[in-house]
């Protein structure tokens, strides 16, 4: 079965991203497909490549990145939500005249249509939020 996951909360502040990650791992272990992971609201902050969590804690962004690499996951950050919150990839930083970018390369920036399309293409859409 194909799942699309929607993550609406940032890392560490809320358990939503952790729950989604554990769900994704369990689904993949059972042979299901993760069609897309879409990051919205403060969930876009999961895609920062600049976080430095304490060494004895989990690294949520790197966990997602590793899972994505292993299973070729499509992890999409909503561009409108990201721009509001200062989350930019290199292309977008150039376009907006900003002097830095902070999106981890395991994630890609795209529009909200990717969420709706994820809902259409997947058998189930699950929301993890607050």
């Amino acid at each position: 079965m194909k799942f699309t996951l929607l993550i609406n909360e940032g890392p560490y502040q809320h358990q939503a991203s952790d729950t989604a990650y554990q769900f994704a791992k369990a689904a993949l272990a059972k042979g299901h497909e993760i069609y897309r992971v879409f990051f919205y609201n403060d969930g876009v902050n999961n895609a920062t490549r600049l976080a430095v969590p304490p060494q004895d804690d989990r690294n949520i962004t790197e966990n997602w990145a590793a899972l994505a690499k292993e299973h070729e996951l499509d992890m999409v950050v909503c561009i409108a939500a990201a721009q509001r919150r200062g989350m930019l990839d290199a292309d977008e930083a150039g376009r907006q005249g900003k002097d830095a970018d902070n999106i981890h390369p395991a994630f890609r920036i795209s529009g909200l249509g990717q969420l709706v399309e994820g809902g259409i293409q997947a058998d189930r859409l699950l929301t993890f939020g607050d």
Partner: protein
Amino acid sequence: MSESIKKFMFVNTKAPYGTVYALESLEVVLISAAFDQSVSLVFCDDGVFQIANNQNTEASGMKNFSPAYKALGDYDINKIYVETESLEERGLTLDNIMALTYEDEDDDWAEKPSIIPATRAELADLMDEQDVVISS
């Protein structure tokens, strides 16, 4: 080959302004209109405050996004369910919420109400029929 149409329902349960969920949910709804799916909205619990009349953000400095709800009809989104119990619990009636409308292309573009009052039990039935339910 065209794909079958899915039923999307956006369930709004939170008050506007205190958090960003109402505004960003509306942005998804407006985008979803471009995908030719069956889209409906629910306002229940504190979500009923999202479509309250007379929102005035002048002194709070917040962006007043309530006019965008009035555009839903232009996007062919005209099934907007409002939970009657949630209104009653909050001392509200249909008079307190925006009279959202759409123009019915099958009826010589007659203006018709988009707001559909629904009880909890009716909403439970409607949610059960959906393919995708996105709550916030």
